[in-house]
């Protein structure tokens, strides 16, 4: 190893990429139905499991999913974390203004989990299995943010 010096020649390469991914047909239908305050999922013809958000295939059965079903907006908290940092633009970490709760919600009669913000419950009171209900934004845009958060039911 060369002896360490104070400075080396290390030119900065400033790359700033922008990509434009399509979310796909399944998520588009899901997002559009948010405008009507509906949560839509798909049901597997073989195992009968219901997936929300919808996906194209049931991996366990290798079945293409095309039976759409509207699902309940209540469920239980299956898993959670309490975030203390947030990602800023450029993927930098910053301290969150205050700790915030993210939950994986198991909606009633649904077999997958939905990632959502959880509010109106203090981090110390969080419990796996708590009953939860969906709370919508007032102005709906057909966007992820329409489904504002879940809170104790």
């Amino acid at each position, binding site marked *: *190893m060369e002896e360490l010096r104070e400075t080396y020649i290390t030119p900065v390469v400033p790359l700033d990429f922008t990509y434009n991914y399509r979310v796909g047909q399944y998520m588009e239908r899901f997002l559009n139905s948010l405008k009507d305050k509906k949560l839509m999922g798909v049901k597997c013809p073989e195992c009968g499991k219901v997936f*929300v958000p919808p996906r194209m295939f049931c991996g366990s059965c290798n079945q293409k999913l095309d039976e759409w079903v509207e699902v309940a907006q209540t469920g239980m908290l299956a898993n959670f*974390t309490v975030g203390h*940092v947030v990602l800023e633009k450029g993927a930098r970490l910053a301290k969150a203004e205050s700790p915030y709760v993210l939950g994986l919600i198991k909606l009633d009669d649904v077999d997958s989990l939905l*990632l959502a913000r959880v509010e109106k419950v203090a981090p110390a009171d969080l419990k796996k299995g708590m009953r939860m209900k969906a709370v919508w934004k007032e102005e709906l845009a057909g966007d992820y*943010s329409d489904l504002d958060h879940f809170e104790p039911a």
Partner: protein
Amino acid sequence: MRNVGIIGVGYTPVFVSKRRDVNIAEMISEAVDAAFRNTGLGPEDIDAMVFGNMQTFEGLNLPHLWASEHIRALGKPIMRIATGGTTGMSALHAGYYHVASGLHDVVMVITYEKQSEGDSQVGLAGIITPEIMTMLSLGIDLTGGTGMGGLGGGSAGGVSFQANSYLNRSGATIEHIDKMAALERRNAALNPYAHLKDPDATPEKIAQTPLIAYPIRFGHVCPTTDGATVAILACEKKAAKLADKVAWINGLANCASDATTGNLIEGLITDPGEQRPCMIAAKKAYEMAGIEDPQKEIDMAEIYNGFAHQCLMFMDRLFLCGEREAHVLLDKGELEITGRIPVNPSGGVVSTNAIGTSALNRVTECALQIMDKIEGGHKVQKDVHNAVAHGWGGLMQYVTVTVLGDKPRKR
């Protein structure tokens, strides 16, 4: 299929956060030189090369071709493998296929990461954003407060759900994660090729580091490291001719589930702590290696743990203990270098993470223990006849397993 053994290993002289004194290709050449030095072999002995590093981290797409002279690959078959965190072990497995198939007799596996020259958060975003396309198409918001917020800290946010799930199912507590991290930082202090070393690490010290996303603290998280690792593989005939000691690759497997936090093949579809691919891969690898009772026959393990809870979580997924037992073994001191089943005597990924090398280092560390060629103080005290190495990555859902032994597999 022919038996394949590891006949030599080479590391860069150090694994540290910044190797500004060399460029990427120069740094890689140091590990190649070390492998030649340690084996007495030269470029003329190598038939083909497999190269591995993490996609996107330094923004280089063809580092193996840039470094082709530095790795002495001119005029030889070479390919690059990139499977995320598991890259190093996938590259080793590709090297195994080269030799086991009979196509080549001696193959060099070269892996590196020079994280200081890229932008690791952007690198992770570069992995997770396009790949998260899958997640995006499955309902995780990239722009708002929910999705990427939950992944705050790169993969740290994502694994917080995993850690919480593990604590729930095992009965372990956040203090056990602190304890595991402290154990590994102490082990790292004995390993000349480790990065974050703290001979005086205690669970209390780790517990003082701030929370990122419950239950993950900064003290549970791997560093970003610069370093390179090389392994030389050979068929039985060549190994007998070229090496005094061999660590045999007796079993190997890999397995994936789907790309969401909720893993489709994993029971209730959604538990990131279930890690069924690990169980599937481990079963296959043990079976191939002729290991019937891993708890009795495996003498030590190197487990991929970018986050400290994963060592405990994967122990039972690798069938090294019962489902609610890993933290109990930790409390009893059985996971220490002096213990009954030493885990990550090297200090693990949580102490050293030059990503492309990380899953290969799990294998080379087991190999060096078997060959009794460990430099430094982290040689486990019992004889190592069989060891298991584990890699974890992808988007949380991809696992590689390698079973090594001091004797070649009976066919």
